[in-house]
């Protein structure tokens, strides 16, 4: 059984390595500051105890007041998982750091988020739309998108 690490434990470890980056947690999830996504990702990937080398999925949810980025991480060696979330506030010209330098698997998924949700990932070498064509008006998975 893949064991979900306790959010409190992971948040404590993240804060020990990078003070004041994990701001909130519950049983299974940890919320981090959007500006710290890249450094926390590097830590989770390289820390020998946590060893989260597999980025399972990246997605974004539009909660209208804010967007939430959701990272599902898996450690194949330890058979553990954790969910890292980050709230991005605002509606216009949103951006977040890209984790492609840590996990190549973020490549297409970050492009998909930009395409459908409109969150720009800084540091991504090829931040283009992936499912829709260039010039498509708006980002259709946003809750306020109207045809």
């Amino acid at each position, binding site marked *: *059984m*893949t064991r979900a690490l306790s959010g409190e434990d992971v948040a404590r470890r993240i804060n020990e390595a990078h003070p004041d980056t994990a701001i909130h947690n519950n049983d299974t999830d940890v919320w981090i500051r959007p500006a710290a996504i890249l450094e926390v990702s590097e830590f989770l990937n390289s820390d020998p105890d946590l060893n989260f*080398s*597999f*980025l*399972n*999925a990246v*997605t974004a*949810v*539009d909660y209208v007041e804010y967007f939430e980025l*959701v990272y*599902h991480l898996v450690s*194949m060696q330890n*058979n553990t998982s954790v*969910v890292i979330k980050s709230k991005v506030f605002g509606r216009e010209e949103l951006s977040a750091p890209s984790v492609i330098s840590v*996990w*190549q*698997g*973020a*490549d*297409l*998924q970050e492009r*998909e988020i930009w395409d*459908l949700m409109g969150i720009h990932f800084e540091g991504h070498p090829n931040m283009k*739309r*992936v*499912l*829709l*064509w260039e010039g498509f008006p708006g980002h*259709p*998975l946003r809750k306020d998108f109207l045809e």
Partner: protein
Amino acid sequence: MAVKTEPVTINLGPQHPSTHGVFRLRVKFDGEVVLDVEPVFGYLHRGTEKLAESRTYVQIVTLTDRLDYTASMSNNLSYVLAVEKLAGIEAPERAQYIRVICAELARISSHLMATGFLLNDLGAFATPLMYCFRERERILDLFEMLCGARITVSYMRPGGVLQDPPDDFWPALTRINDDLPQYFDELESLITGNEIVLARTRDVGTISAEHAINASISGPILRATGVQWDVRRADPYEIYDRLDFDIPIGAVGDTFDRYLVRIQEMRESVKIIRQCIEQTPDGPYRADAPWFIRAPEGDAYAAVEGPKGELGFYMVSDGDISPYRCKIRAPSFINLTALTDMLVGWKMGDLITIFGSLDVVLGEVDR
């Protein structure tokens, strides 16, 4: 004397028999050698995730059929597991067994298509494909007995399955399941030792285990590199923890390993189905779940080992009768991440086989 050549950019697809759908590759060639590849897709984008936000939980089952249309049962299963986790519904044991049987049949049917089309891409035009389709046809007949549909089955429901299998389903399933191993022997005697197949697939399109993990690749492509990671074993869902089966892995992660892992997985699926036939208990086939499910506020992620890799649904509920957000972790889409790295440096003919060995279904890539 070396001939001086200029790089040429060629569009492969979107209408091309080897792209298994509408998929375009912008390939830069130097002579016949691939210099750079840019995959272009989205031609089949139907906005499944957006459509799901305005449908009830039961209606969305029909949308999931249309993702990976070669294994719609696996999509059904992944989706209903996510809804059950989100809404706290538990399916009766009989339903869980039936769903596992369906998912494994779907795996065999999908792997047969992958193998057939790989041979097609190698130039063995249509004959091996017809061998594969012959047995796949019988599996689709079983699905027809269950629900009347062959491809877009919509057989599973949150809390169970649509209806109990008819009485003549079980003998038909046993017959097909007993026939399959001999059929795999026949298929392997034609392909596995074939000199041309070996020359064209061995050490072609190799990807290392570290690279595959870093690129979030899952399923047979990951296992072909030697990583023994299978969601059915790592995080057992349904009744997989009661079943005895092996997880085949490859040695070097080349095209041939990917083919061989799929063949061996089909043999394991036959073993799983045989155990399920013996163990399936009597009882209800569906839990008493309401037609309009109102899941409590929150989120849930559930994944299954689909034929292409880890197929997961991340669902967010705000307490309404339709999900607030329904994200699909589509394995075909994510497995394309390392496509460029796998293709650069190979020749045009190898490009077709390497892409074919990834077993990508465009319904799932574009969603």
